[in-house]
């Protein structure tokens, strides 16, 4: 593991930039634990102060310090992305491995459902969900429903790897030595698909955080929990751009762009690393 990281850091520009961006965002989110102000309190500092040495990123019209608010928001947003990614990975792995290994009608049935979830536009459904839930919508609930809707694309990817593993000799050996389907999938096939699972995790986080920001800026989530989206929502509610409180919008926007580009670059560099052809090219060999 350490050797892989070292190789990536040495030979892969995308990984370096991605690691720096994600590292900075992570650092800021960890700082939330040291915040002098509770995240939900308003009017703890003078409102509408521009960035200064005492308030690095300025203060909001609600009397909150943008720096500390942003730190809480990043922590919640990243936690949200990780929760969705974790749960949807489990679903994608279970469905992808089973579908690829079983073949036949199980595969066809699972993939039909899979393709359905790829095609359906999810935002209107999530909006409908909010419309029905209203104030009872918590971020955990949103994370759960998004995990249940967001596994399809990666399940198909995992399935294609599982299909190629099926015809390998060791699968037959383990089958003849009496292992059950579940044992073969978990003990034999899972290690081979883990690299793709890592890279899809990043992409899935980009997807889920993007949707969360979208829903939150419209006010369609639990807007009292500080996330990047809800920060921008409150800034819009107080017409921060028109009032000239640009720092309230600018810093969350910059932070979220850093998060997205960072996660995306990590995913890209991992994909490059998994593919032996491009890995060879990146360390300077000829393919």
């Amino acid at each position, binding site marked *: 593991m350490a050797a892989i990281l070292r190789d990536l850091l040495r030979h892969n520009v995308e990984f370096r930039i991605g690691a720096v961006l994600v590292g900075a965002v992570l650092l800021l989110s960890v700082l939330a634990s040291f915040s002098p102000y509770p995240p939900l309190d308003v009017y703890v500092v003078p409102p509408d102060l521009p960035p200064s040495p005492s308030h690095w990123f300025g203060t909001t019209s609600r009397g909150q310090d943008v720096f500390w608010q942003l730190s809480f928001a990043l922590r919640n947003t990243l936690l949200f992305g990780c929760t969705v990614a974790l749960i949807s990975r489990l679903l994608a792995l279970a469905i992808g491995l089973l579908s690829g290994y079983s073949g036949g009608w199980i595969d066809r049935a699972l993939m039909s459902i899979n393709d359905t*979830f790829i*095609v359906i*536009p999810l935002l*209107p459904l999530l909006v409908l*969900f909010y419309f029905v839930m209203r104030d009872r919508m918590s971020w955990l609930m949103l994370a759960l429903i998004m995990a249940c809707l967001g596994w399809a694309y990666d399940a198909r990817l995992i399935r294609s790897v599982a299909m190629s593993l099926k015809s390998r000799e060791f699968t037959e050996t383990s089958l003849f030595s009496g292992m059950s389907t579940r044992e073969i999938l978990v003990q034999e096939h899972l290690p081979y698909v883990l690299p793709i699972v890592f890279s899809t995790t990043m992409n899935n986080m980009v997807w889920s955080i993007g949707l969360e*920001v979208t829903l939150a800026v419209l006010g369609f989530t639990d807007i009292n929990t500080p996330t990047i989206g809800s920060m921008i929502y409150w800034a819009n509610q107080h017409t921060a751009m028109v009032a000239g409180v640009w720092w309230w919008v600018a810093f969350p926007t910059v932070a979220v762009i850093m998060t997205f580009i960072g996660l995306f670059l990590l995913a890209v560099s991992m994909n490059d690393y998994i593919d032996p052809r491009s890995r060879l090219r990146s360390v300077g060999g000829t393919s």
Partner: protein
Amino acid sequence: MRKGRYLVYAIRRLAQFVLVVFIGVNLAYVITHATPIDPVEQSISAVTSFGNTAPAAIEEMRRSLRELYGLSGSPVEQYLVFWKRILRADFGPSLSAFPTPVSALVARALPWTAGLLTVSTIIAWGLGTLLGGLAGYDRTNRGLKLMGVVAMGLHPIPYYILALLLLIVFGFLWPVLPISGGSAMNLPQGLSVDFVLSVALHAILPALSLILIGVGSWFLGMRALVSNVVTEDYVVYAELAGVRPWRILSSYVMRNALVPQVTGLAISLGGIFNGAVITEKVFGYPGLGSLLVDAVYAGDYGLVLGVTTVSILGVSIAVLAIDLLYPLLDPRVKVR
């Protein structure tokens, strides 16, 4: 490809389309009916919170809402009524624009969204694919390399953030383009030159935010595909045989890489539609997205449900169309 095999393929795709619509509508049903909250009480509290209403009037409203949204009767009956309304495209009158029927509001908004999405998707896909193909083929070109870096930076940004940035740039810093609405207010809607021009002008910013992100993703996809195709034996052979570079690029490389790009288009339409919803809201574009968001703010249950259903239907029809055209565009595709 033989006709019979295409027919089998088309029937399979059609079955998939029916499944998508079936599951989508069922999801909508489950979301609206399996939650502990009663949408009728929601609507009523939304209306009554604005002032005092006579109890008798509330009772009357509650009964008619229950009938309208098929919430009376046994669960099986409710389910059947739900489907009947959807198949008839009858979502009752809109609460927020009473008594205009929901279907009329949706029909008014649909052309805006369809037009915006079609134009911006075609431009983004075409431009991204073409430039990505060139970038994958000619890895030394500096301009194309720079374009790759820009694409990597643009592609992962969510639609809302990019739309917000465009709004700030063209709304506050350099106000040259209209930032709100679908056309100028004072023009009659019709096929006059002024109206068409005004529509085009108002579409620039919403389309641009969809295109900028789209170009990035198609560019990266096509570049990766082409750089894999370029190393294939038949391309090396064609180069050695002295086939002109332009011909190699167009008929040996691009043509082969195009197939997964078309599949990719079908797969990502749902996501592009999500982007259009939020982009429309940011720029106040009079399409389905704005209608959906405003319906939620107004507490208009029928309208939210109607827009959701129509979006699912619209996106699946578009995907079906791409799927059906795709073997015709590329005769090499194996039809299973």
